C-alpha cells in the first residue's frame, strides 16, 4: 500500500497520527506538531529518571520479543568508563511487517527524537539507525531529516544547547534478513559478515565494537517521546487486555483481506473486530482460513483461534501464537496452506546465515520436502520427518531463525494436517504453481 488509509475511528493513532501528512516530514512541520519537546525535556533530566518513566509506562520491545524496554535500558551501567551505544533496529525484514517503514517515511523526526532520548537515557553519545537496504525512500527521508536536525543544532556536540553530545547515524543494510537479529546487526555495523554472535556475552555487556550496547526497534524508540510528553500513566492506561501489555501498537496487515495497511490499536483490542471491522473482512465471496499474526516467524492461527484472541503479548500466546512484530498475514479459503508454508520455508532456507548446522541444512531440507509435497510427490513418512526435523531445529542454535522455520512447519502441520494429507493422497492438488524465488 503506497499511501496510508484514513484512520479508522476505533484506531488509537499515536505513532501513526501523522501518517500520510506530507507536512509532518520536515523539521518545521514536526516542530509545529510538538516535535523535540520530549528531547529538550529529556536532556535536562537525569538519565536514570528517563529509564524510570519508561519502566513505569510498561513499554515493551516492539520488534518481536516483547522485552520490557525500561528494564533493558537499566542493564546499561552508567559511569562504567566505557562508550555506550544505542542501535536502532530498522532492518524491518520480517515478511508481512511494514510498520517501521511508515514511521520512517512519514515521521522521520519522531524516530530521531526517540533515538536521541534513548541514547541519552542509556549513557550513549552515539546512536546508529540500521536501516534495511531495500528501504530506499525511508533511507532518503531519514538522511534528510538527520541533516535538518544537525543544522538546527538538535543533534551534535551541543544537542539542543544543553552542552550534551548526541550523534545519530544512519547505516544502510545490504539486504540480509538475518541482520535484523541484534547481534548480527552489530556485526554488520562493524563491517563484518552479518552472523549472529553467541550469547553470552549479551549486548549490554559487550555489544557493538565490544562495548555496552542497547538495541531497540524503531516503533519502540518512536514511542518514547510520547511517553515523556504525556507521562507513564497515560501510556499505561492504554490497555484493554493484560495489564502487562500497555500502549498502542502498529499492526501491518496484508494478504487476502479487504483493506490491507497499517493499523494502530490499543493493546488488548479484540482480533476479530480488528480483522472484520477495521480491515474490512475477507474480499468478496471469500472466507478467512488462517492468520499469521506476528510476522512469518510466529505460529499460524486457525480462524477459531484468531477470533478468540485479544491483541496483546499475552493474548496471542493464549491462542497458540505470538504477537511478534505485528505483521498480520491473512489467508482466505482459496489458499493452499502447504504451498504458503513451503514458500515461507524457502525464505528461511535462503536467509540462513549458514553458521549452525541445524539451520543451514535443516531449513534447506525442510524446503525440499515441503516443495516436493506441494508438487504432489510427498509421502506420509515425509510428514514425520518434517516434524522430527523441526524438533531438531528448535532451541539448539545460536539465534532463532532455525526455530522460526520449524515453527512454520509444526504449526502448519498441526493445524492444517488434512491439507498436507490431501496433497499426499492426491485427492486435491494445489492449483497454483509454486513461485520461484
Amino acid at each position, binding site marked *: 500500500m503506497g499511501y496510508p488509509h484514513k484512520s479508522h475511528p476505533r484506531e488509537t493513532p499515536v505513532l501513526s497520527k501523522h501518517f500520510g501528512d506530507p507536512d509532518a516530514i520536515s523539521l518545521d512541520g514536526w516542530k509545529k506538531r510538538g516535535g523535540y519537546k520530549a528531547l529538550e525535556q529529556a536532556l535536562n533530566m537525569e538519565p536514570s529518571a528517563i529509564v524510570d518513566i519508561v519502566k513505569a509506562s510498561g513499554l515493551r520491545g516492539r520488534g518481536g520479543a516483547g522485552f520490557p524496554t525500561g528494564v533493558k535500558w537499566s542493564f546499561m551501567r552508567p559511569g562504567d568508563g566505557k562508550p555506550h551505544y544505542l542501535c536502532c533496529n530498522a532492518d524491518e525484514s520480517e515478511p508481512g511487517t511494514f510498520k517501521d517503514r511508515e514511521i520512517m517515511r512519514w515521521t522521520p523526526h519522531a524516530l530521531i527524537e526517540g533515538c536521541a532520548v534513548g541514547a541519552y537515557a542509556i549513557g550513549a553519545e552515539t546512536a546508529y539507525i540500521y536501516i534495511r537496504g531495500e528501504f530506499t525512500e525511508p533511507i532518503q527521508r531519514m538522511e534528510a531529516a538527520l541533516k535538518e536536525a544537525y543544522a538546527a543544532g538538535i543533534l551534535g556536540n551541543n544537542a539542543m544547547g544543553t552542552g550534551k553530545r548526541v550523534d545519530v547515524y544512519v547505516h544502510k543494510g545490504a539486504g540480509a534478513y538475518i541482520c535484523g537479529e541484534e547481534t548480527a546487526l552489530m556485526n554488520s555495523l562493524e563491517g563484518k559478515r552479518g552472523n549472529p554472535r553467541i550469547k553470552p556475552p549479551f549486548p549490554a555487556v559487550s555489544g557493538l565494537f565490544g562495548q555496552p550496547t542497547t538495541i531497540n526497534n524503531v516503533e519502540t524508540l518512536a514511542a518514547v517521546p510520547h511517553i515523556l510528553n504525556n507521562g507513564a500513566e497515560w501510556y499505561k492506561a492504554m490497555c484493554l487486555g493484560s495489564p502487562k501489555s500497555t500502549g498502542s501498537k502498529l499492526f501491518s496487515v496484508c494478504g487476502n483481506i479487504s483493506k490491507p495497511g497499517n493499523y494502530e490499536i490499543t493493546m488488548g483490542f479484540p482480533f476479530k473486530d480488528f480483522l472484520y471491522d477495521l480491515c474490512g473482512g475477507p474480499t468478496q465471496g471469500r472466507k478467512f482460513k488462517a492468520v499469521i499474526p506476528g510476522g512469518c516467524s510466529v505460529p499460524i492461527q486457525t480462524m477459531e483461534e484468531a477470533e478468540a484472541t485479544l491483541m496483546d503479548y499475552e493474548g496471542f500466546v493464549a491462542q497458540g501464537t505470538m504477537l511478534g512484530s505485528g505483521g498480520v498475514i491473512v489467508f482466505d479459503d482459496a489458499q493452499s496452506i502447504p504451498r504458503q508454508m513451503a514458500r515461507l520455508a524457502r525464505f528461511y532456507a535462503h536467509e540462513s546465515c549458514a553458521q549452525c*548446522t541445524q539451520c*543451514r541444512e535443516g531449513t534447506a531440507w525442510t524446503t525440499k520436502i515441503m516443495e516436493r509435497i506441494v508438487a504432489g510427490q510427498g509421502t506420509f513418512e515425509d510428514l514425520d520427518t518434517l516434524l522430527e526435523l523441526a524438533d531438531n531445529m528448535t532451541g539448539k542454535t545460536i539465534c532463532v531463525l532455525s526455530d522460526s522455520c520449524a515453527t512454520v512447519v509444526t504449526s502448519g502441520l498441526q493445524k492444517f494436517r488434512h491439507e498436507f494429507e490431501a496433497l499426499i493422497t492426491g485427492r486435491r492438488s494445489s492449483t497454483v504453481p509454486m513461485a520461484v524465488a
Partner: protein
Amino acid sequence: MAETPMVNLTIEGLAVQVAAGTTILEAAKTAGVLIPHYCYHPSLPVAGVCRMCLVEVEKAPKLLPSCATTVAEGQVVHVYSEQALEARKGVLELLLINHPLDCPICDQSGECELQDYTFAEGRQDSRYREPKRFDPVEDFGGDVMYVGNRCILCTRCVRFMEDVHKDPVIEVQDRGDRARIGKAPDNDLTQAWAANVVDLCPVGALLSKDFLNKARAWELDRTASVCNGCSQGCNIVVETRDNVIMRYKPRANDDVNKHFMCDEGRLNYAWLNRPDRITWPQAAGAVTGWEGALASAATALKGKKAYVVVNPSLSNETLYALKQLIAKSGGAGYFSVVQGPEAPLPGVADLAVRADRAANATGAELLGFTRSASPLAKLTASDVLVLVDVQLSDADKAAAAKAAAVVVIGTALPQEIAGAAAVLPMTNYVEEDGTFTNLRGRVQRYLQAKATTGAARPAWYILSDLLSALGEKSEYFTASAAFDALAKAEPAFAGLSYDTLGLRGATIQGAQVTA
C-alpha cells in the same frame, strides 16, 4: 597475579575441579570424557557453530554448547543423556545429507571426525530423499585443495587464517546450504603456515596436495619426533608406510608450536627417503666391515688434532661424543648454518620459521662448537678433518684437500672426499633416537621412525666405538645412556634425562625463556 579460583562440577557423574573460566568441553577432557565437536579447536577462537558439542546441564532450559559455556559451581553435566544424544544424532544426520559419503576415495578416511562420530553416535541410515548439493573441487594454491562437497563449514580454516595467521584470504561465501569456503580473488594459500588448515579440517574437505591419494590413514605408522628444518623445533609426528616417510604432521605442544607447523617444515621430508645413501663402512675406498673402517679411522686420528666440521642438525648426543673426540685430540669444532627468511605465525607468541635453518645450532654452541660462515678456514695440514653429515661448498672442497687425512661420518657421501681414510655410514635423524636443543634452550626428544639402510649406525654410537678405539673409555649402547653421560658432564644439561624430557621437552638451566 592472584590465583585463579577453582570450580567444582559433576560431568557424567564424575567430580571435576577446574579453574574458573574453563569451558565445559575442556573440563570434560580432564575427566576423560571427550565431548564430540567439530568447530571447536583449542588453538582457535570459539565459534560455537557446529552445535555438535551440545550437552545437557541440569537446571538449564535447553541444551548448551559445551565449547562456549564456562563451568559454574555445582553444575551437573550430562554428556550422554537421551536429549543430548538425540541432538547430536540430529546434527550428524544433517551434516551427512549433502555429504557425498565418498569415504573409499577420501584421504581423510580413517582419521575423519565425521566418520568417527557418525560411527559412535550417528543414525544407521539417512532419511534424506532429495538430490545432494554439488560443489566442484577447487585448488586453493599452496599445498591445499578444497573439496566443497565434504565441507561441514565448521570454519576452523577461516578462523585460523583470520585470527592466527592474520591473513584472512578465505571466508564463508554465500548463505544457507549454498554456503561454501571461498578464497579471495587472486589470493592463494601460499602463506608460510597456510597448510595447517589441512590438519585443522576435521573432515576431508581440505586436503594436502602433497599427500593426495598417497596412503590410507590406517596404513601409517606414527612416531613422535621434532622437525629439524629450523631452530624452532616444532613437535611433529613422522608418518611412515613400509619404511617410507609419507608425511609430517604437527604434534601439539603448547610451549613450542601449539598445534601448528610451517609449510616448509611440513614438506621437508623427501630427502630422508633418498636411496643414494652410504650403506657400508669403507676404509681407503674399499668396503670393509665396521671393525676395519673404525680401525682405519682410529689410525688416521691417532696423535693428530681432530678438526671437526658438523652439521648443526646433529643430535646433542652425537655432538657431545664429538666434543670428547675434540678434547682428547686438542682439536676444534666448527659448523655453519644455512640461513633463510624468518616467517612468524602472527597469532602465536614466539612461533616462527627461524632464520637458522637447522635444528641444533644452540646445542652445538653449548657444546663448544664455533659457528663460522667458512668452517674449514682454520684447517691446517697437520689436522685430520672429521666431517659429520656435512655437504661441502666449492670453497670448502678446495680447503679440505689440505687436511692430513679425512674421516667421513655421513648419510650420503660427498663425492669429492672419495679418498677418505674412513667412511662411516650413519643414520639420518628419523632412523635414530636423540635430542635437539631449540633456540630457546628447550631440549626435545625425537624417536626412531623407520629402519635404516645397510649397516648405518647412529653417529653417537659410531663415535663411542671410535673413542674406545682411541683409548677413551666410552661405552654407550642406547641414546638414553649417551644423553645421561652428556647431562652428567655438561652443567647446562644438568638434571635432564630422557625420562624428565618426556615427549614435550624441558628447558636447560639458564636458558633464555620465551622472548
